[in-house]
């Protein structure tokens, strides 16, 4: 069984380490020598104006782009050359900017799918139980995200906000040590947003999960994250708690001055 509750002794250890990452596209440096660490249990916000290199950095971390130099390690292992599924097996969960659920499968099936590849072997997945022994655990997670009443509905028939919750829940199913959330607030209305934030915070507290969040919505980031990195022109220009960032003149300059 996958342990959702991480060992308390791990708290504070580096889950993600980014070292001197640079990436240029045709002479323009999208990411320029960026380094930072994310410790266990943290919710790290990654913000910056459009074109500041957030997405490029994100893709480098996820192994989708090969950085020109530098290295990304998750739990001490390099992500270089890893496919998305390998990275997931390494303990990295993620969501996408655009909503990504499986509309023709039920909520329960969506969640089971998100966990099943971490259970047993190819062989047991073919000849073992059809839910890979995950129904109970999946139901718990669904309840946690307050989708219990929709368990057997097709994911495609859910409202946008509910799908967004499901989307996030899937990223957590396999008990990842690190979850990367790409603009989780995008397109979500205010009430839904509160709900989503509240659940994410609760999850972080109860299970000690580590998040990295890219987000434009300042209020959302400020109230969710424990630490924030500000990216501008491919470099980290500020780092600190939400309160520090809010009052940092360089950040204000980057956003307003451009």
């Amino acid at each position, binding site marked *: 069984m996958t342990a959702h509750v991480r060992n308390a002794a791990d708290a504070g250890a580096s889950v993600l380490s980014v070292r001197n990452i640079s990436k240029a596209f045709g002479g323009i440096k999208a990411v320029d020598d960026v380094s930072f660490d994310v410790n266990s249990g943290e919710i790290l916000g990654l913000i910056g104006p459009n074109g500041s290199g957030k997405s490029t950095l994100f893709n480098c971390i996820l192994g989708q782009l090969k950085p020109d130099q530098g290295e990304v390690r998750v739990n001490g292992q390099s992500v270089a050359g890893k496919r998305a599924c390998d990275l*997931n097996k390494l303990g990295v969960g993620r969501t*996408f900017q655009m909503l*990504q659920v*499986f509309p023709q*499968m039920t909520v329960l099936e969506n969640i089971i799918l998100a966990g099943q590849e971490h259970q047993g072997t190819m062989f047991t*997945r073919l000849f073992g139980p059809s839910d890979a022994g995950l129904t109970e655990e999946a139901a718990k997670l669904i309840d946690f995200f307050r989708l219990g009443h929709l368990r057997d509905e097709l994911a495609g028939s859910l409202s946008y906000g509910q799908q967004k919750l499901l989307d996030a829940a899937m990223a957590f199913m396999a008990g990842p040590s690190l979850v990367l959330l790409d603009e989780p607030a995008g397109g979500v209305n205010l009430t839904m947003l509160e709900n989503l934030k509240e659940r994410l915070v609760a999850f972080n507290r109860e299970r000690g999960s580590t998040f990295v969040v890219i987000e434009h919505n300042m209020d959302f980031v400020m109230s969710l994250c424990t630490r924030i990195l500000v990216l501008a022109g491919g470099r980290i220009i500020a780092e600190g708690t939400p309160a520090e960032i809010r009052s940092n003149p360089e950040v204000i300059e980057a956003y307003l001055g451009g």
Partner: protein
Amino acid sequence: MNSRNLILVLVGIAALIAAPLGQGNYVIYVLCSWLIFSIAAMGLNLTLGYAGQVSLAQAAFMGIGAYTTALLTMAGVHWIFAAPAAMVLCFVIGLVLGYPALRVQHHFLAFVTLAFSTLTFLVLRNEEWLTGGSLGLVGIMRPKFLGFDTMPQLHFYYFTLAVFVLVALLFWGLVHSPWGRAFKALRENPIRANSLGVDIRRMTLLAFAIGSALGGLAGALAAPLVQFIDPPAFSLMHSLKILLMVVVGGSGYFFGPILGAGLVIVMPEFLRFTEGYYLMIYAAMVLVLMIVCPTGLIGLGRKFASQFKGRSVRGDLKEGAKL
């Protein structure tokens, strides 16, 4: 499976058992072809409907299965060993063919299988020492099982039916296993599936190889049914025919290909009165179906059913303003 569905399935099987009774050899022959093509179409449905890959070589795999079975049984090997050998061969060829094609790009499997289909035809025709060339192989024996001789047409039908039911059950198990869930996921959203740990390349490859192996099994049944095989019976045109079965019936639905195979095989019977025009009418009907309802007949049926029942209440509306 709920009890109502279970009853429907049992009734279906009973109908299949009763179907050939009192019928002439020809009708039984048509029923046999239907079951055999259903197996091939089910295999293709796994590739196409579940894993979302177009294969244009299903008939070629049938051919490989048929020739393997024919050659082995004619050399004295019992069908019960020859057919699995044919399936394994098709599975392995599927892996060898699919691995490089899927490494490259999504729709390239269609192109590779298209080429493979014609290459298979050429090899079957040209390698006369093995395959009998364009004149084919004659005199394929029907198997005997512990005193049950499948030589009479009716016996052969029950033999085919038994294999069909077994395959359908295994197939049902497969698509309802975690593998099946992964297949569906990679059809609906491969990128998301990949990020959730589904090795899309491996699963797609497996879906294609298993689908091809089922094509091989269909061939292993077709050879003793017709007792004769020649290369044109497994040409590209027939691959397209099987593709048609899957799409017309409804790809991605369990019963879609079975329905589709029935239609494609039985349709010429109904359109016979139109003489030479039947292919034309047939093509026109497929064209219209694709324009009106690309999800095939089962999709069309569901469309009607849901309009009839009134639109089902959306889950979120039921729960009102909870969110």
